[in-house]
């Protein structure tokens, strides 16, 4: 086991070393991911924790890598995403030939493996920093958008600072950094460490970096940042929640923050017309839902009564199923969109019309399946995940305290709204890009066999993952959530509460849908109706290009009705009109660099004004300050 583990790691490092041969480098990444996947699968079936590596750095600090059931779950999820991405990137590297890309890819994978197997705060933070820095390296696309990419790095460092403070606090109270000592941790450590993970999950208001940058970075980077990297935040929370001592207020804050983030993300996903910003905001939405589920898991876990204990487990299962759904769907969505985007060489939803006929069936199907999964379309896995989260929140009446019940129900309202609005946004994406009219446009011919394989396998996983939900639930370690009901045999029905509150059976729905699909197809093939192709009906005249219904127009009514949230403004001129919406929660994030710049200039003009006396004073003050700090520390 340890052998395969280190073999995989060395494959990643081999990939990084051979980054001048880009395709080979991605190939190493693929092979390494297979190794990680195998280890994860093995541990899923045999969930005894195993220590892979331990190195005593100091007397009370042992760097430990080990693998247990929770690590295995996330290793498998992440490894599937990595494999698809590595395969996809081999073809995709024809567009982005920078050597920093495979280098960053492989090393950030190493970072993530470290995070997922770390057993102490120090190792976790090493992995965290490696992942952040090398993911940043990948953002250098064709146009080198330095300033915007630095924003990502800044948020990554904010996350690291939170973790640093949190683990330091832990160290001061317990004298150890290992996860086992966490049960003696303080509330402060809990807040700081979970904030560190939340920042990585792009939860509002920590999503400010992605506007502007997502359109410019390569798509495999976008997929990596959006799916596996945010998954690390989810893993972190799942890991620390049962360990650190719990606090009800903080749990409620997590639930509300998640619910609001879901709502906010969906709102702005619906309003954007940029091809990659829409999935990026959908990440904010999905991670918000996951955060709310984790918060609920933490909250319900405080109570010992039977049905609340069941609910806590159900919430945990919901959060993991949502994480699975999000990672796979988002990877697939970014891969398919990237495929279409490069084939058309465009950036907006309006320009990327007709992927089905213009680019290919497989990427179009990828957009459709992943977007449907985000819109909670049965029997896809996203449907199961979002249903589970909603069912969890709707059972908040089981809490003994009214305020807990009220706030979780409020979160349920926000998440229900978010799921509705994200459906609206996804219809926009599907309707215009995947299934829209190509209007006779032809795409570039690009080598795409491996891209197709990667996309197709994730499409299959999304469909089969929904149908095989009972199997996944068992693998995740929640077999007691499954029952049999109304003639459907035993493990196929997922029950959300005890006593039974609500049930679904995606397997059964999938079977019924399959039958309902097969009958019309058979009828259609048998009868052999004559098919005549005509122009689309447009009032008797062929549609001109300026008459195409624009994507902006699709969501304008929402922007108008919810103008309080969007700060919708109309810019008017005699012959020019446009609607502007704004993400007001980004404002502080954009104001900060401006403030820093201003203060820097002011300070510079005071200090570096050419007078030697000022400069000497400055050095003197600095020296005294350092001296005083040193004295205090001593």
């Amino acid at each position, binding site marked *: 086991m340890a052998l395969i583990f280190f073999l995989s790691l060395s494959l990643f490092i081999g990939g990084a070393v051979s980054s001048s041969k880009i395709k080979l480098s991605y190939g190493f990444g693929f092979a390494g991911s297979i190794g990680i996947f195998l280890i994860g699968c093995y541990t899923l079936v045999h969930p005894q924790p195993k220590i892979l590596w331990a190195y005593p750095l100091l007397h009370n600090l042992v760097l430990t890598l080990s693998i247990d059931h929770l690590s295995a779950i996330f290793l498998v999820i992440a490894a599937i995403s990595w494999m698809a991405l590595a395969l996809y990137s081999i073809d995709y590297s024809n567009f982005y030939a920078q050597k920093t890309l495979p280098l960053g890819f492989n090393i950030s994978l190493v970072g993530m493996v470290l995070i997922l197997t770390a057993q102490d705060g120090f190792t976790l933070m090493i992995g965290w920093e490696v992942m952040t820095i090398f993911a940043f390296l990948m953002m250098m696309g064709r146009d080198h958008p330095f300033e915007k990419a630095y924003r990502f790095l800044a948020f990554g460092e904010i996350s690291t600072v939170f973790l640093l403070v949190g683990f330091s606090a832990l160290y001061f109270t317990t004298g150890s950094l290992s996860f086992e000592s966490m049960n003696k941790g303080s509330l402060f450590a809990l807040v700081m460490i979970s904030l560190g993970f939340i920042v990585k999950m792009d939860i509002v208001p920590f999503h400010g970096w992605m506007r502007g940058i997502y359109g410019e970075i390569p798509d495999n980077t976008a997929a990596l940042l959006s799916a596996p990297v945010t998954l690390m935040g989810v893993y972190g929370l799942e890991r620390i929640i049962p360990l650190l001592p719990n606090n009800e207020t903080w749990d409620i804050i997590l639930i509300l923050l998640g619910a609001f983030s879901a709502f906010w993300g969906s709102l702005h996903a619906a309003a954007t*017309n940029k091809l990659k910003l829409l999935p990026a905001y959908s990440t904010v939405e999905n991670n918000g839902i996951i955060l709310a589920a984790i918060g609920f898991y933490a909250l319900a876990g405080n109570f010992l009564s039977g049905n609340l204990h069941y609910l806590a487990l159900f919430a945990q299962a919901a959060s993991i199923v949502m994480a699975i759904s999000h990672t796979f769907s988002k990877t697939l969505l970014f891969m398919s969109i990237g495929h279409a985007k490069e084939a058309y060489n465009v950036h907006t939803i309006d320009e990327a019309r007709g992927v089905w006929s213009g680019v290919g069936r497989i990427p179009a199907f990828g957009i459709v399946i992943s977007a449907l999964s985000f819109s909670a379309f049965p029997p896809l896995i996203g449907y199961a995940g979002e249903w589970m989260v909603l069912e969890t929140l709707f059972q908040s009446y089981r809490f003994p305290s009214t305020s807990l019940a009220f706030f979780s129900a409020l979160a349920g309202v926000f998440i229900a709204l978010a799921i509705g609005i994200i459906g609206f946004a996804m219809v926009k994406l599907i309707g215009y890009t995947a299934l829209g009219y190509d209007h006779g446009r032809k795409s570039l011919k690009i080598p795409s066999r491996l891209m197709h394989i990667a996309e197709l396998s994730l499409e299959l996983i999304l469909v089969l993952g929904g149908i095989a939900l009972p199997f996944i639930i068992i693998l995740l370690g929640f077999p007691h959530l499954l029952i049999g009901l109304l003639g459907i045999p035993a493990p196929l029905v997922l029950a959300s509460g005890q006593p039974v509150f609500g049930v679904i059976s995606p397997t059964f729905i999938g079977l019924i849908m399959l039958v309902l699909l097969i009958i019309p197809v058979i009828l259609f093939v048998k009868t052999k109706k004559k098919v005549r192709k005509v122009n689309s009906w447009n*009032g008797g005249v062929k549609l001109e290009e300026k008459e195409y219904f624009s994507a902006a*127009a699709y969501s304008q009514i929402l922007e108008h009705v919810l103008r309080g949230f969007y700060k919708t403004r109309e810019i008017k001129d005699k012959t020019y009109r446009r609607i502007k919406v704004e993400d007001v929660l980004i404002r502080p994030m954009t104001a900060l660099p401006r403030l820093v710049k201003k203060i820097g200039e002011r300070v510079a003009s005071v200090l570096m004004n050419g007078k030697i006396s000022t400069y000497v004073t400055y050095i003197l003050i600095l020296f005294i300050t350092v001296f005083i700090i040193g004295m205090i520390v001593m």
Partner: protein
Amino acid sequence: MKILIGIISTSKGDKLYVLDDGQEMLINDDGKNQKDIYGNYSFLKKHSFKINDYPVTGPGVFRFRYGPVTSGIREAGVFQLYTYGEKILRATIDLSWKYREMAGTMQMTSPEAGLLMAERVCSNFAMSHSVAFSQSVETALEIKTSLLTKNWRILLLEAERIYNHLYVIYKLAAAAAQKVLAAHLSALFEEALRLNEQLTGSRYLMGINSIGRLNNNPSGPAVQKAVDGYKNLANTFTRLYEHGLANYNFLDRLHTSGTLTPDMAESMGLTGPSLRACGIKDGLNTTTSHLISLPVITQSGGDALARMEIRAGEIVNSCQYLIDHLRTSDSWIDNEETQIRKDKTGGTGYSVVNSPSGALGYYLNVKNGNVQDVNPFTPSYIGMHAVSHALEGAIFTDFPFIFDSFGIHFTDASC
């Protein structure tokens, strides 16, 4: 108050066809500051078939084309609505799809043949076109029509007004999904058409009017039956309309839809119910003064609701007018014979009538017994400009209320 309803280009320079308190007159276009006096001077001078053709651009802005073949507005015509989703930023109206060269085909024909054409410019305004055309020929040839003919023409114009107004209110009710009201209004509309048939033999009052006379004067028991018919119609309509006005769902759709300010309506040269809905009188009711002038109804809203209320009031007024005069029509004595001057074979004539949707005028020359230079000025052409402006800033769901409330037609506008 002077309203410019058309510009005629003649060999002796342009002439402005102006309505001065309901009286038509021609003014020579001296080319000076006419733009300041008449707000509609520029577009009437241009007389383009593409109304308000100023595209709007911007991210997400596209042109939504409504027409030429749609079932919402069955007439062949195109609305090009510039929009970024729900709001109409600009409405360009293209009249060219239904251009049938009507004015052209009237050239060099005998006045009788021209009259036949005029009736078919817009058949639901057949009587208005026919009367305006025949009166123009009559002035050109100095034909004096008998009082009986004049009286009947006025009565038939009112009959035309009734069914057209009923049609407009029916359309508005149907657009607001007032199914019961719409069904009953359409029954009344059909009833009004049948009364037309009873009076004249034609559901659209076609073929009854001729130059200097009527082809046959309605008389006898048919007229008395029509009196009962109009009584019944007025009563039913009044009750139905009151019932309809009690429904806020209906009124809310019309209220503040397609509002025109009095200044805008006046500068655009609107006449008829659309102008009166802004509280301005056009004086057209005086064209019937040799019987009794029609009472004038005005409203101050300037929106679709005001326009509908005016039409509703006019339906009742016209019914009453018809009932009063049809009853006594037996006693009308044709004391003034129609006088035709055999020696007169040429001249210039123009005339305006009070059509259901506003002032409808004709200008023509007669030379050697043939009509030439026929210039029809229809309320629909100016009305289309008003619709185009009223649509600006509205949302799509208001579209039918705005368009239908003006009671105008593509075929009338594009003649």
